[in-house]
């Protein structure tokens, strides 16, 4: 039975929300963003910045929307003269010690202080004392710089490290207007999830060294994607500038990663920009066009029989994995993948969220589609197979008496003997899905064009299928996925469109591990 809803009005808009909802969250439902700094939905409420002051009818004074829970019949006014004056006052006070060095600040353009001052700040300052609080820049950790002069002491970083990372190495040091974020003299901000403090910082006080001066916020294009760092499947945004991935940031998904990603995932993007890519199809090492390369590969597949092996990267899209399997269905088929292992690094404050030991975004998808983890056995089978199809697995030391068909982003030594090499897009260059370790199917979107003639693996395989079996070509990842969902038990009932931006779980029955 659903919990009873509480009815209230916010700026004359009636909303109904569950009991216990904070006014600041209820306001979002009314289409009202109450300006705030210390509040963050992923952190404990602090109620310290006092920015979200709103008028609540019958309350004797202004209330902070972040710490006030809704009540039946409550009337909230965020735009009353009194509330606006109070917030203007907070903004003025936040600015008296803020350097206003926006032209050289990485946060400019995505700075909440800029935004709210622009929205409802005072046109000029009355602070005529000129000297501002000064503290030198501090090196907090491997990827974090602290610029105390810009700090507004919202304490989001402190709460993250204390409550979620469980490593309280930073605090508010000193008091009054001398306060700053201090770090333990013998500690570094080097927790595997510490980079989140940079995203959490509403101003340019905590900066990523990796992103330092790389781009202005307004130059960035943002694309929803899935982190490829491990099998957790954290939702991320790829920030690209002129088709170069320059930053990875978490994209909120309450079911998977809430508002966070680990540093491993955050910094695992440079390979998406690498320059030594295959840009044209090769037939026996000679560059050619897609028509010749596809028809050569189709000829090989039509003419062969017996055993076929698919050696796939667990970074391959579910769609490509499905189509590869379908392509080899005429053979005695073996599929396998290998997973790089690392240390597991949980974020203790969030249940079931960790950098997983399996550094593979689609191992579960591969398993569900019948690919095996016994990579060594598959390699052994390759020796006597008629066809070996490799999808972007550069570490394969393949020895085969049959024909090697190589789909890849780069050309490793092991692929030099391939009959046909087909250039494919990487995760940033195509649409597709991954299945995370919990069986959640999640879409990623194309963030930049693929180099040269490279195409998404699902496109290449779908073309081959059309040529070999006369099957209908899939025009998009969506069509490929829907074909997959229509023919694979584990994915029954799912549709590409239905996955949306947050993904969906496979059915419990089908999802049970074999």
């Amino acid at each position, binding site marked *: 039975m659903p919990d009873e809803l509480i009815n209230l009005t916010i700026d004359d808009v009636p909303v109904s929300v569950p009991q216990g909802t904070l006014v600041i969250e209820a306001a979002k439902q009314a289409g009202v963003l109450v300006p705030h700094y210390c509040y963050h939905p992923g952190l404990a*409420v*602090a*109620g*310290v*910045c*006092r*920015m979200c*002051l709103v008028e609540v009818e019958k309350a004797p*004074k*202004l209330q*902070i929307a972040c*710490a006030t829970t809704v009540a039946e019949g409550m009337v909230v006014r965020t735009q009353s003269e009194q509330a606006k*004056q*109070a917030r203007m*006052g*907070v903004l003025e*006070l*936040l600015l*008296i*010690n803020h350097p206003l060095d926006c032209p050289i600040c990485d946060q400019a353009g995505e700075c909440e202080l800029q935004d709210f001052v622009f929205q409802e700040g005072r046109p000029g300052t*009355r*602070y005529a*004392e000129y000297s501002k609080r000064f503290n030198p820049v501090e090196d907090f950790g491997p990827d974090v710089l602290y610029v105390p002069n810009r700090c*507004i*002491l919202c*304490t989001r970083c402190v709460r993250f490290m204390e409550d979620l990372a469980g490593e309280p190495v930073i*605090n*508010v040091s*000193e*008091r*009054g*207007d*001398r*306060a700053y974020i201090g770090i333990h003299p013998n500690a570094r901000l080097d927790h595997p999830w510490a980079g989140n403090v940079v995203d959490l910082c509403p101003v340019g006080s905590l900066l990523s060294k990796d992103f330092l001066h790389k781009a202005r916020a307004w130059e960035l294009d943002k694309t929803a994607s899935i982190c490829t760092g491990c099998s957790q499947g954290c939702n991320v945004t790829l920030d690209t500038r002129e088709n170069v991935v320059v930053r990875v940031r978490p994209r909120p998904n309450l079911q998977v990663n809430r508002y966070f990603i680990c540093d491993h995932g955050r910094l695992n993007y440079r390979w998406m920009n690498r320059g030594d890519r295959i840009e044209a199809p090769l037939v026996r090492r000679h560059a050619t066009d897609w028509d010749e390369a596809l028809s050569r590969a189709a000829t090989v597949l039509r003419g062969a029989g017996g055993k076929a092996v698919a050696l796939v990267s667990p970074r391959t899209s579910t769609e490509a994995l499905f189509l590869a399997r379908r392509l080899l269905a005429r053979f005695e088929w073996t599929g396998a993948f290998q997973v790089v292992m690392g240390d597991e690094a949980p974020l203790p404050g969030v249940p079931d969220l960790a950098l997983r030991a399996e550094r593979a975004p689609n191992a579960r998808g591969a398993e569900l589609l019948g690919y095996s983890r016994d990579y060594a056995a598959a390699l052994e089978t390759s020796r006597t197979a008629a066809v070996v199809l490799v999808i972007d697995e550069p570490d394969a030391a393949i020895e085969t008496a049959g024909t090697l068909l190589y789909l890849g982003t780069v050309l490793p030594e092991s692929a030099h003997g391939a009959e046909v090499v087909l250039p494919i897009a990487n995760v940033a260059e195509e649409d597709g899905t991954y299945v995370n370790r919990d069986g959640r199917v999640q879409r990623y979107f194309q963030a930049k064009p693929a180099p040269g003639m490279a195409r998404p693996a699902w496109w290449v395989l779908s073309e081959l299928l059309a040529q070999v079996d006369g099957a209908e070509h899939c025009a998009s990842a969506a069509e490929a996925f829907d074909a997959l969902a229509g023919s694979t038990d584990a994915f029954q009932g799912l549709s590409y469109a239905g996955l949306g931006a947050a993904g969906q779980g496979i059915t419990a029955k089908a999802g049970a591990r074999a």
Partner: protein
Amino acid sequence: MGYPHKPHAKETALLSKHFGDPDARTYKGWAKRGGYETWKQAQTMAPAAITDVVKESGLRGRGGAGFPTGLKWSFMPKEKKKPHYLCVNADESEPGTFKDREIMRWTPHALLEGTLIAMRAIQAEVGYIYIRGEFTEPYAIMEQALAEATKAGVLGGHKIHLHRGAGAYICGEETAMMNSIEGKRGNPRIKPPFPAAFGVFGMPTTINNVETLAAVPHILRQGAAWYKAMSLSNPKSTGTKLFSVCGHVRLPGNYEVTMGFPLKDLLHELCGGMRPGRTLKACIPGGSSVPILNREESEGCLLDYEGCVEKGTMLGSGGVIVFDDSADMVYQIMRLARFYAHESCAQCTQCREGTAWTTKILERILAGQGKMADLDLLLDLSDNMTGKTICVLSDSCAAPVVSGIKKFRTEFEDYIAGRKQPVMVA
């Protein structure tokens, strides 16, 4: 100042009766004076019955807010499901206030007895007495008294811990105190949840001031009606109150009078009046956090909760700061603002930045570099700092500034216009 101090005929020495008598400090000496008899009596009473008597007496919190004590106790869960705690606020740090120190110095057992009775009333097995860090002597005396009481077996299964502060004014704010007791930074907490629901260690907690608790045994022994009858003006303010008088009077010190006592009599009779040739200029009746009264208001003010409100100020902690005509009000207000700027915990923006900015403006005015517009700026800033933060430290900084500009505007203008020699402020 100091003791022995002979009570003035107009004083009502209840809590201060044994001030200056070292024998009353000891367990034996206290027992001789009827000590812990009331505690024995309370142990036979139901907790709710104790609360009812205190409620009936009209006793209100002596720490500053004046909240009815019995009512506060009644907020504690009746049916006990978790450990209950009592915190005793002995972090007396309000500028101008030094009454709790004297209670602890001379009558430590009075505080312990009141603490035990309160603990029974709210069903707390553990109590913390949070003593201001600078109070080394009162701490040593309390430690001795607690050891004696424990040895004498009067605690009856209750546990009392003495907890020393580390020098932060804000730890006298009840929720900051709870954080401090927990070993955390002494930052005030947002309310709700209120201490009676979620207090120290997340358990139901009551926080009472030293003077409040020291009055409890008297109320229980002599009855609510007797206590309630001690009221010279408004029946909502009952009992006696200790006033710490400091500043420009001939006899500064602690004076205990019945609620509703005229401030004028306190200053001019009990405290011996102004120094020769000086006249009263202003008075802060309730510790530095309350609005300043001018001479006329002071001389018409009755010292109880309502009487002070009537004059636009508050009874507060009863720390009476007196200024005669030699006082430089701009300088005095700057000193108060500087205190709050120093002590702000830095959580709320208005307080962290506002107290410091207020101080800077006042310093600028004193240095002869002020502008007339600064006065409006100060008032606007003070308005911004009032009623918008977690605790009232920010409001406390604004109160003397607003009342000071309102009542002594010409003194500010003299500095700004260059009519007065600039003051170097270090």
